[in-house]
């Protein structure tokens, strides 16, 4: 299954605004994307509670995975999103 590993760039971590932006973007993908921290259990990237439950702070390494023909495009766009400081996008 295609994967992307990326470090959370948002200053305040993956919650509030950055989490919302990420979750909404994940929901727009044509394919279900999952997110995990390290060897943790992958959770659906389109669920705000699931994403918050990861407790990912600034600098946490997360891994995204997805399956299907659209997987690579979806993973690239979501990984790029996490690599940006989403708190700065006011």
């Amino acid at each position, binding site marked *: 299954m295609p994967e992307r590993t990326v470090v959370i760039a948002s200053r305040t971590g993956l919650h509030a605004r950055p989490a*919302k932006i990420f979750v909404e973007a994940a929901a727009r993908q044509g394919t279900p994307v999952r997110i995990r921290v390290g060897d943790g259990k992958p959770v659906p990237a389109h669920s705000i509670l699931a994403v918050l439950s990861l407790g990912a702070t600034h600098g946490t390494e997360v891994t995204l995975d997805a399956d299907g023909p659209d997987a690579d495009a979806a993973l690239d766009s979501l990984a790029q999103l996490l690599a940006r400081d989403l708190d700065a996008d006011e």
Partner: protein
Amino acid sequence: MPDTAPLPLDPRAVLLDASAADRDNAIRQCGRALVAVGAVEEPYVETMIERERSISTYVGEGVAIPHGTLAAKEAVHHDAVCVLRFPGGVDWGGERVTVCVGIAARGDGHVRLLAELAQILLDPDRVHALREATRVEEVVHLLQPTKEETT
């Protein structure tokens, strides 16, 4: 996985039968509950409303988790959560909220608190129990980490 510790919920910060005219009023009541247990100073409350206007803290299943902005960190004395139930429902930008879990955290503590809370709210049985609990102690108990996690 983040470390799990009991959520800092003072029984005095649990209200089973609150009612609010609107979202801002519900958030102010949460803020007052956090002030009442000595967790935050008054200015924190307005930043909870600010945060909500900038981004909704609605997380689904009729639950919202209002918290203040980073700007109000000095107004926080210690980490705390409060639970206010609104059986009549509160309009939350088109969603109907019946449970508010207000959060105050020092420094980066909010990410850990949110993670613990999210793990609890992801369990539909616990959310149901939280909605149906008839005693404050039940609510306090429901917000403790599950036995499997406290190894």
